[in-house]
């Protein structure tokens, strides 16, 4: 097995295990930390796909900013483990059958996706076989500011709206 293939399996395993830990275990802080580990695995996969800029931006934005936001919220709200009955008085028990049914549905979805992909033609070719990579940051910038200019401007408005909305929604009412 080539070194690149080995790295693919290692990073894929890290991403999948991290995601499974996110949904599998009860403490929210550990969920957030497991997701950060999964993001590192995904970042490695982006490096293998010859997209170094996306890999680093994934760490900066997702693991470095969005997850810090989640971590702050979890710490400030002092979120306990799920189903801790002494705190969640309204709904003290974890309902067993919905959890099992949900897991079954998730597994069915995974199997459906894998089955659909296995019946698609043209997926056997290597990712790097046909065309050379376009990974220069200058090329990214050029295409972003020419072809995708409208989306870029709309995204900036979206960010301002989200900022203002978050501040307004989380503000304490002065009663």
């Amino acid at each position, binding site marked *: 097995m080539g070194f690149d293939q080995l790295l693919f399996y290692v990073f894929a395993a890290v991403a999948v295990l991290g995601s499974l830990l996110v949904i599998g275990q009860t403490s929210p802080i550990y969920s957030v930390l497991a997701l950060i580990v999964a993001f590192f695995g995904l970042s490695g996969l982006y490096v293998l796909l010859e997209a170094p800029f996306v890999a680093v931006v994934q760490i900066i934005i997702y693991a470095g900013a969005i997850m810090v936001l989640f971590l702050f*919220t979890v710490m400030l709200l002092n979120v306990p483990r799920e189903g801790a009955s002494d705190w969640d008085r309204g709904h003290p028990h974890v309902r067993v059958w919905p959890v099992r049914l949900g897991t079954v549905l998730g597994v069915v979805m995974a199997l459906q996706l894998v089955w659909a992909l296995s019946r698609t033609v043209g997926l056997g070719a290597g990712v790097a076989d046909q065309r050379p990579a376009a990974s220069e940051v200058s090329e990214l910038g050029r295409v972003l500011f020419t072809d995708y200019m409208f989306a870029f401007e709309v995204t900036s408005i979206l960010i301002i709206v989200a900022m203002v909305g978050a501040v307004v*929604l989380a503000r304490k009412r002065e009663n």
Partner: protein
Amino acid sequence: MPLGHYLVLSGLLFAIGATGVFVRRNIITLLLSVEIMLNAVNLAFVAFGRQFGTVDGQIITFFVMTVAAAEAAVGLALVIGLFRHRESLNPEAFTSLKW
């Protein structure tokens, strides 16, 4: 690496995220599962972008990341507001329309 491997991984991560949305009874973990799904989609975009040799896949991932960031910010602000109202983060505590 064949493109199929990357797409299967992306599908698997998407299914894991969807399972999280079905199974978890904590709003913050629900938001985390949605983030997993968005990342799975990003991976598929970058893999296809690499196969066709263009940067378009990578550029779309920027927009997905930005939307994810905005959605996480507003979602968490809503969670804080909800928590102040009902002192619970279980989505089943918010099933009645009127208090």
